[in-house]
């Protein structure tokens, strides 16, 4: 019985430690976010769209009635720098120096942006969704 309890405790500890994993993922999230912002700064719509998730691209094209590469530069998102990055499992948020945030998810193509130009709404930010210029 003690051996079994030890195995149970070890597995629990391993799960707890793994919950804190994500150093590599944070680097990837930062890199994708910076690629998006750099593309916006250079008015390179095609490169910016390559960092969006398929769902976000489709949403943008449906909203604006034009190709993603033409629409993305008109979202009003400023080319700022990436500050704090948070990663939880397959979802992430990158906070920008200008106060906006980007939301990303990890799929078969790697980390891609689901929502950009997001600002916290009034009240407790954990209760209300951010107000985003584009969200999938």
């Amino acid at each position, binding site marked *: 019985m003690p051996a079994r309890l030890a195995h149970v405790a070890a597995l*629990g500890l391993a*799960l707890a430690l*793994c*919950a804190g994993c994500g150093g590599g993922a944070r680097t990837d999230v930062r890199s994708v976010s910076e690629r998006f912002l750099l593309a916006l700064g250079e008015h390179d719509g095609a490169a910016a769209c390559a960092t969006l998730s398929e769902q976000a691209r489709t949403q943008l094209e449906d909203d604006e009635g034009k190709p993603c590469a033409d629409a993305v530069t008109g979202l009003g998102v400023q080319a700022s720098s990436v500050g704090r990055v948070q990663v939880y*499992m*397959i979802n992430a948020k990158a906070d920008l120096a200008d106060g906006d945030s980007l939301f990303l998810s990890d799929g078969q193509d790697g980390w891609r942006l689901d929502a950009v130009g997001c600002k916290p709404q009034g009240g407790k*930010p954990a209760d209300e*969704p951010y107000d985003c210029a584009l*969200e999938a």
Partner: protein
Amino acid sequence: MRNHGLGLFFGAIFLLAMIGQAIVGHADFNHLQVAHHGDPVGFWRYVTSSDFGADVLENWQSEYLQFTLYILTTVWLVQRGSPESKPLDSAGRESDEDQKVGAFADERSPRWARAGGLRTRIYSNSLVTVMGLIWLASWGVQAVAGRVAYNANQLDHQQAALTFVQYVGSSDFWNRTLQNWQSEFLAVGSMAVLSIYLRQRGSPESKPVGVPHDATGIEG
């Protein structure tokens, strides 16, 4: 093997249930992913995720709390007629003679029961100490893993993540915790009371079939 049937049986069905939970949990997670237009994740990624970890640990912690409380409360609380209870006049930690410690230990007693002093005090409480530590550890891991899973869902809905302190004060953490606690407390309480009147022939968890309802502390 015959002498270890109880441990082996429960070890085996634990593993089978765990594998089953991993398989259906993975399917359920991916079902939700597809419903939210996300990509499915692989099996290994799921079983090492905080989503799976929180689901497993919230149940473990409540089981260990149940046994920790049961070990402790049955020292002082009795239940007339229940085989789960000590005799009504034995409530408390009992004498050294009853417990065969120190000078009253015999040659087959565990070494730390014979040793006296601090070692005997530690050994006298070792079961509840270890069960209690496992409960606290698994509850702590539930909080860590539960926060990660909760925050993943928050970010998926473009909402802010919670700090650890915010999470352990959140409705999600206490809903996960209390839904497990209440079921454990109900099961233990009903076992203590139902076993006054009902019997299972041959089980040490029951009184012998012919023993009267008011006989306390007798196991079959």
